[in-house]
């Protein structure tokens, strides 16, 4: 065992670092990192944030951090923690402002060469059909508050019922695209107003739609099991709950600060404000968070239909004929009731994943029938110039991380530094030279999101694979990207 002076971390093996209990921590922390990634995070506040999470009442097991960890608000990004439903708390800081920000992957029966000549057209048409950018609104869909509340109750199920996609899609979404404990009465008017015109919009920042292809297969049997083959055209959609989710988080951070005082919780950070899971306020937050999560599921479902429509427009074939089916849809920012084996017995806990992905293994009851033999697909997007990964969940993730793994690359440069680096460069032209067609709503987003601004996602994926908390299946390379 190797001692390290950084936060007294104890190295357990090549990819595991134990953060011993100190101060007011109720439990220890565990960081999944190699030395290279540890170098990236040792100077930001993320390790302290792992310790801060361990202060929270009713935490079960360890305060965990995935290899893409970096400084967040409250929890670190890449933070995972579970809480006892009777003794524990729920915290908006463990979910984040973009509730159920997540990723879905579509496969197709098309091969790279089938679409190569149409990339510019495809990207332009996608950009025209999927509203994107900071204040993007849906020109064709402004929901009444009454209808919006139906979306908040049923999520992607509402979308399918209203003609956006098929029942088959619902079978390939985490939780079937709907958290059942949503209650729209816990969502403020302001949140509703922000959501009314934003269903079916991409938003800005790191959100995107990416057309790519399978360029490497690491496990043929698993790839086959989830319907992926070399050269196959794929589409990744990355977005969340838009202004509605941001407002829900902000509203409940305000409410729960008072609640934390009321219960006398000693907190190291205001963003970690929380309420007992069983308290009125805790239940209200969970019900409102579920509404925002359902909005995000519906949002990705509507965008999926726009993607299908775009392919039909550009290639003149039906979406079904092009095999544009859903592989899976995963949440990156969420708190959920899940059953896990803890100290030899099955217990219900509230798992918070903040910039982390559920990674359940084969034969788990929550994994859809199609993936019972492979394990749940895990989708890890990289930056727009490199590649993304498809993995599956493992038994080891279930025993060590409440069935969780990493969610992405994680930033390497601040936005300002990225802008400075990009100065004098024509990002669109440089990416085009690499064979990637990019269209962004604003140059600002494009330069802030340059490939060099992110860690190489391969470094992150290698750690989860080697540590056994997910298994590599395939790598995807981008051909065309629209950015918010």
């Amino acid at each position, binding site marked *: 065992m190797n001692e390290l002076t950084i936060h007294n971390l104890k190295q357990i093996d090549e990819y595991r670092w134990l953060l011993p209990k100190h101060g007011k921590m109720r439990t220890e922390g565990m960081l999944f990192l190699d030395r290279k990634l540890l170098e990236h995070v040792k100077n*930001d506040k993320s390790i302290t944030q792992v310790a801060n999470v361990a202060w929270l009442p009713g935490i079960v097991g360890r305060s965990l951090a995935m290899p893409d960890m*970096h*400084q*967040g*608000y*409250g929890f670190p*990004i890449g933070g995972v923690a579970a809480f006892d439903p009777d003794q524990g708390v729920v915290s908006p800081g463990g979910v*984040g*402002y*973009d509730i159920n920000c997540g990723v879905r992957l579509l496969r197709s029966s098309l091969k790279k060469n089938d679409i190569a000549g149409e990339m510019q057209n495809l990207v332009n048409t996608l950009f025209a059909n999927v509203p994107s*950018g*900071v*204040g993007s609104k849906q020109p064709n869909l402004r929901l009444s508050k009454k209808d919006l509340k139906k979306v908040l109750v049923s999520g992607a199920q509402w979308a399918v019922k209203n003609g956006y996609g098929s029942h088959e899609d619902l079978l390939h979404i985490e939780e079937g695209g709907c958290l059942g404990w949503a209650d729209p009465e816990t969502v403020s008017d*302001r949140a509703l*107003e*922000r959501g*009314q015109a934003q269903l079916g919009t991409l*938003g*800005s*920042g790191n959100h995107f739609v990416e057309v790519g292809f399978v360029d490497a297969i690491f496990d043929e049997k698993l790839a086959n099991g989830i319907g992926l083959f070399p050269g196959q055209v794929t589409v990744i959609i990355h977005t969340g709950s838009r*202004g509605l989710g*941001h*407002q829900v*988080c*902000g509203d409940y*951070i*305000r409410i729960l*600060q*008072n609640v934390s005082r009321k219960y006398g919780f000693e907190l190291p*950070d*205001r*963003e970690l404000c929380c309420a007992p899971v069983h308290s009125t306020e805790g239940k209200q937050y969970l019900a409102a968070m579920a509404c925002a999560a359902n909005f995000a599921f519906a949002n990705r479902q509507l965008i999926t239909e726009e993607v299908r429509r775009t392919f039909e427009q550009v290639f003149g074939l039906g979406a079904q004929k092009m095999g544009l089916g859903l592989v899976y849809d995963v949440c990156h920012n969420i708190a959920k009731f899940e059953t896990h084996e803890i100290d030899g017995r099955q217990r219900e806990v509230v798992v918070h994943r903040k910039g982390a992905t559920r990674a359940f293994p084969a034969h788990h009851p929550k994994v859809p029938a199609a993936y019972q033999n492979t394990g749940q697909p895990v989708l890890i997007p990289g930056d727009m110039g490199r590649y993304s990964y498809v993995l599956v969940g493992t038994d080891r993730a279930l025993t060590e991380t409440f069935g969780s793994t990493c969610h992405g690359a*994680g*930033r*390497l*440069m*601040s*936005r*300002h*530094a990225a802008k400075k680096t990009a100065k004098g460069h024509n990002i669109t032209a440089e990416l085009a030279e690499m064979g990637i067609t990019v269209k962004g709503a*604003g140059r*600002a*987003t494009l330069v802030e999101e340059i490939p060099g601004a992110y860690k190489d996602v391969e470094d992150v994926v290698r750690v989860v694979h080697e540590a056994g908390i997910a298994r590599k299946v395939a790598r995807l390379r981008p051909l065309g990207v629209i950015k*918010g």
Partner: protein
Amino acid sequence: MPSQGYRILEHTADTGFEVKGSSIEELFEAAARAFFHMLWEIGTDRQSCSETIEVAGSDLEELMVNFLEEFLYRYDAQGLVCTQIKVILITDTMIRAMARMQRFDSDRDRELLGVKAVTYHQLYVGRKDTTWRAQIFLDI
């Protein structure tokens, strides 16, 4: 401080800013102006109207978050942006300000930064000697 009256504070994944003022009123006005400057580029030669904005909070820090969040909500839900701000009254728990609001016009105005929320992360609002200072981080 640069000419816009604020300083950008940046870390790998964070974007924040720092403002100063010789009074609490000035500080809140400076924070609002900095926020608007970071978010939008707006033409001013258009129809606008004056509105009274009133926001409450349990302390000065919460007041600052709620004050800036008010403009985020106005923009996101109503498509309105603020071009001028004047604080009329401020206590530890409430602020009243006159704001000139106008409709965001995507043909003439530009969105510069997508802000999800104003956070409590390393938030500071306080006074040292005669100078008021605030530090605010945004989730983007």
